[in-house]
């Protein structure tokens, strides 16, 4: 039982490039989330999903896209990378009514 896994761990992008951050969970959780963490700012919700085929915007969705074709996977897509997207990205999952979120190890992204 690996929990929540994220790839890659680190990535450097040039402005305008695109990439996909991968997230997989093996706990059969229906809820999955993407957060970004900036220094001194806590975590902010980008997108979340309540199940396969259902996604919704969080607090800071601009510049990102998501899809959820399976229960296990919840990839986050950056289409035109900008320096403002330099951050650490965390994926998390949960099942209701427990609600405690299990976090992956994070992806540190730098856009230059």
């Amino acid at each position, binding site marked *: 039982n690996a929990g929540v896994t994220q790839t890659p761990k680190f990535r450097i992008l040039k402005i305008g490039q695109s990439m996909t951050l991968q997230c997989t969970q093996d706990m059969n959780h229906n809820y999955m*989330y993407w957060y970004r963490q900036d220094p*001194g700012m806590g*975590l902010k919700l980008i997108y979340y999903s309540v199940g396969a085929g259902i996604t*919704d915007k*969080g607090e800071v969705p601009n510049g990102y896209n998501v899809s959820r074709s399976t229960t296990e996977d919840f990839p986050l897509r950056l289409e035109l990378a900008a320096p403002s997207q330099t951050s650490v990205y965390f994926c998390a999952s949960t099942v*209701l009514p427990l*609600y405690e979120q*299990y976090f992956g*190890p994070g992806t540190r992204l730098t856009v230059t």
Partner: protein
Amino acid sequence: AQSVTQPDIHITVSEGASLELRCNYSYGATPYLFWYVQSPGQGLQLLLKYFSGDTLVQGIKGFEAEFKRSQSSFNLRKPSVHWSDAAEYFCAVGLLYSGGGADGLTFGKGTHLIIQP
């Protein structure tokens, strides 16, 4: 708007001393309340959570937290800290809706705990 406030950005405590980290929230109803810990370069680990029942909850690693509805607070405590407790601590809140759904958690900005020998 929903918000979570952790008023202390940094706290320095001597090893063996007691610890209290403060958290206040602003929500229309009593939310689920969580404390997470993040070691450098790591993901977040759940310390404890509260939704209902006994207002003093016990967590892992010897931590506890007390919910005070009248003060909209959920402060984290530990009677005696260890050097390994040095980390970033986040308070978070979330709501379960009457229809059974939920969205993401709202996090405070975190408190950086430094342990002095």
